[in-house]
């Protein structure tokens, strides 16, 4: 066995032991579904910031983010303005009321606010479906890294990564997810920091990088990047703003905060840290990948792992790649939890059992929760086996579907009494349907569909429908209005 393999294996084994111990210990704290899905609602500010960052800085954001920037230009990094605006929308109009309402999932909110099991089931389906799509992308990213790190075939990287994160999520729920996020956070930061001097030696500082990348790829630093239209650029920002304030794994973290103030305080800190992180992790390293390794790869997703293995000593490379694999896991585990909760909590408990008078104890639902996580892990694993290029493009379509499903029912439904169940349903189903049609047209190569990100037309229709249909239909019962808005004025 070569030395690099042994070093990679040793560092990853260390990481694996830490994560496994966390999973087992966290399992001892799971007594109810509230413990399992929202960690007993006990998170303080620092923990919540780390949990938020882990939900955003996923393997896709690092691996595909650098690859995407390398391919399309610096403009293709996570759109900071759209991201900051999205988080500000959660901060001002969503976090406080959502935390005070105190549900467990977003379908919980949809079902309770609009007094509708149809909306609950529909939104649980969208959460499960989109989470599995993003999960597949994340697992593939993780497997690429494990392939480089451990010198094992891609398939076995897939098996190993999936077994690890399905194991600790099924055992310890959100508590295990957040504890492991902290360990993963340390690995990611240390990994990226040790990478900096090696890349600096190759391409120099910020201005040197800008000069070199323009020689290699003219137009890379322009505002439109390599081949984006203005309309696509603007819609990319709008869609990401909406995508961030409806990002299920992020918004549901608000439920786990100690109180609504902690939920809100965590958001600006999260934005600040993510922007600093990605200016280096996507923009600078994306340019480095384009300058240094672009001719040696067949898929943009390979750019980052190759950069690391080519320019670092084996021991440092192993640390960086373990950090990136852990970043992939730190989002994957949240997504797995979300899709598990959509099935176990929203479908089985709230849609099938409770409305029909079926009574089961907490231990039963805890068992169902764990099994649903194992089953979804297996489905995502099977889905990740075929090769799908450009993970971030697929992810951006999946998040657009979630955005059009939840954005207006969440934003308007939490802030205005006049939103009706029929209005919310029409908005959600209409917006998602148009987005899906646009995605299919865009991927089939229709020129008209490529002018905008598919989420934008869906959002416009969703907004029109919620206003028009709500104006013509009956509101929810007075009790429900009182629960969300207090006694009537």
């Amino acid at each position, binding site marked *: 066995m070569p030395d690099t393999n042994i070093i990679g294996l040793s560092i990853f084994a260390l990481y694996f032991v830490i994560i496994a111990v966390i999973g087992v210990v966290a399992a001892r704290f799971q007594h109810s579904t509230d413990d399992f899905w929202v960690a007993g609602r006990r998170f303080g500010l620092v923990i919540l910031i780390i949990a938020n960052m882990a939900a955003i800085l996923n393997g896709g954001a690092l691996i595909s983010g650098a690859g995407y920037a390398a391919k399309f230009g*610096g*403009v293709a990094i996570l759109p*900071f*303005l759209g*991201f*900051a*605006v999205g*988080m*500000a929308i959660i*901060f*001002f109009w969503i976090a406080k009321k959502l935390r*005070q309402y105190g549900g467990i999932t977003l379908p919980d909110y949809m079902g309770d606010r609009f007094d509708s099991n149809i909306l609950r089931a529909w939104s649980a389906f969208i959460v499960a479906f989109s989470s599995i799509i993003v999960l597949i992308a994340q697992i593939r990213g993780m497997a690429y890294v494990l392939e480089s790190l451990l010198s094992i075939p891609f398939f076995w990287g897939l098996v190993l990564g999936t077994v690890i994160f399905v194991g600790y999520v099924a055992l310890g729920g959100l508590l295990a997810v957040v504890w492991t996020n902290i360990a993963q956070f340390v690995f990611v930061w240390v990994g990226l920091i040790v990478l900096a001097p090696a890349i600096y030696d190759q391409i120099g500082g*910020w201005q040197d990088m*800008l*000069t070199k990348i*323009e020689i290699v790829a*003219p*137009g890379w*630093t*322009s*505002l439109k990047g390599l081949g984006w239209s203005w309309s696509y650029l603007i819609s990319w920002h709008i869609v990401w703003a909406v995508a961030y304030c409806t990002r299920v794994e992020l918004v549901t973290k608000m439920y786990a905060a100690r*109180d609504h*103030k902690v939920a*809100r*305080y965590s*958001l*600006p800190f999260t*934005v*600040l840290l993510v*922007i600093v992180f990605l*200016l280096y992790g996507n*923009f600078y390293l994306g340019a480095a990948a384009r300058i240094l390794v672009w001719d040696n790869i067949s898929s943009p997703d390979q750019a980052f792992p190759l950069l690391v293995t080519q320019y670092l000593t084996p021991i440092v490379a192993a640390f960086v790649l373990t950090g990136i694999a852990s970043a992939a896991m730190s989002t994957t585990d949240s997504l797995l939890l979300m899709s598990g909760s959509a099935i176990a909590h929203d479908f089985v408990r709230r849609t099938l059992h409770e409305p029909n008078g079926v009574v089961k104890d907490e231990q039963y639902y805890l068992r169902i929760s764990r099994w649903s996580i194992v089953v979804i892990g297996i489905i995502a694993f099977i889905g990740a086996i075929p090769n799908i290029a450009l993970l971030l493009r697929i992810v951006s379509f999946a998040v657009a579907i979630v955005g059009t499903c939840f954005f207006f029912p969440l934003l308007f439904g939490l802030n205005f009494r006049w939103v009706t169940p029929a209005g919310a349903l029409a908005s959600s189903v209409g917006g998602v349907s148009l987005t899906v049609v646009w995605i299919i047209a865009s991927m089939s190569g229709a020129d008209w569909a490529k002018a905008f990100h598919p989420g934008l037309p869906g959002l416009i229709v969703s907004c029109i429908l919620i206003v028009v249909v709500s104006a013509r239909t009956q509101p929810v019962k007075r009790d429900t209005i009182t629960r969300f808005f207090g006694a009537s004025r």
Partner: protein
Amino acid sequence: MNTDLILGLETGPFWLLIGAPVVVITVMFLYIIRIRAEKDE
């Protein structure tokens, strides 16, 4: 080099991509100062 730099300090787009989010973050922090004094309902 392209004059239309994304992160070149001297150009407008820099402020759009980095400056504008910083303004948004600052507004959130200022609002936190205000709500810190609020009593829980």
